[in-house]
């Protein structure tokens, strides 16, 4: 998974308040407006759902500590639809930027910072800021773990 991530053609930066999260471009299915989110909830932790390529997907909202929150934030304008082989869902964010891998110096998350609940696979320095590289699977772990806490 890690090599596949590093071989990704690029990353999409999601701005979640102060938090900057990078997801691999190949896992991004589409960008939608948050205006298209239906408030009908199929998952108790979601904020609603959205139809992406004819398929209804849960949409989740994360705060700037990457905790799942069950209400929509005013600043969220974009819904990023993510998909891998196992799961598909939407994530709301304030803004997105394309980032080329060449511009980002990535290092693996230090061993002492790892645990099975941490979605961050790599850390990077981009324009003198620290960015967190996650993927659809590890973000989904945070969502699943939120289920366990509730």
């Amino acid at each position: 998974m890690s090599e596949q991530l590093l071989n990704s053609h690029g990353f999409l930066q999601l701005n979640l308040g102060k938090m900057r999260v990078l997801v691999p471009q190949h896992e991004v299915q589409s960008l939608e407006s948050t205006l298209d989110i239906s408030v009908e909830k199929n998952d108790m932790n979601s904020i609603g759902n959205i139809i992406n390529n004819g398929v209804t997907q849960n949409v989740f909202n994360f705060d700037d500590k990457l905790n799942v929150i069950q209400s929509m934030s005013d600043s969220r304008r974009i819904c990023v639809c993510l998909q891998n082989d196992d799961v598909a869902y939407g994530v709301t964010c304030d803004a997105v930027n394309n980032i080329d891998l060449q511009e980002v110096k990535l290092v693996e998350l230090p061993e002492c910072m790892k645990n099975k609940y941490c979605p961050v696979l790599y850390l990077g320095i981009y324009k003198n800021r620290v960015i967190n590289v996650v993927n659809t699977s590890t973000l989904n772990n945070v969502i699943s773990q939120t289920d366990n806490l509730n």
Partner: protein
Amino acid sequence: MEQNAENNIDGNTCKAWVLPIANDMNVAVGEFEMIHIISEWLRFYTVPHSPTYCNKILIWQGQLVPVFDINLYIKSQYSINNNESAVPDFVCIVAYRAEGQTKTIQFGAVSLSALPYKVDVTDELFCGYPDEEQRWASIALSCFQHAEYGPTPIVDLQRIYCPEPFHLDMVRVS
């Protein structure tokens, strides 16, 4: 007492840096393991859902360096949550050899409550860990009796920064 050969002065005495990690707690590292003290304002970045005792990172000389709060690790039974930990008064940069074939020099940061200072350590100062209930054995090599502050564990930086999976006890709390 395990000794770093590089530190050995007369075969029995070696120099160590004492790192104050809290008002009531010190640890020690070898003379050449601590390489920089940072006393000015620093920008810390929090890595979400990392262990509370090590959820901050800083940029030092263009590198990302994890900041380990040894006091929090030792005293906290519940080590993982997504809360903010306190910003340290000082940090020092330490160097250690990475595990694996390359054994490259890696850097880490330790949260401090006061500035470090040097002491001489001898075998005769060997003593037990400050509190057997705490988790010193998982990160310390040995312990010596500090004349003023009592038992001072000598920490193993490789075990702190390169723990085997789940070597550092981690308990999830909501």
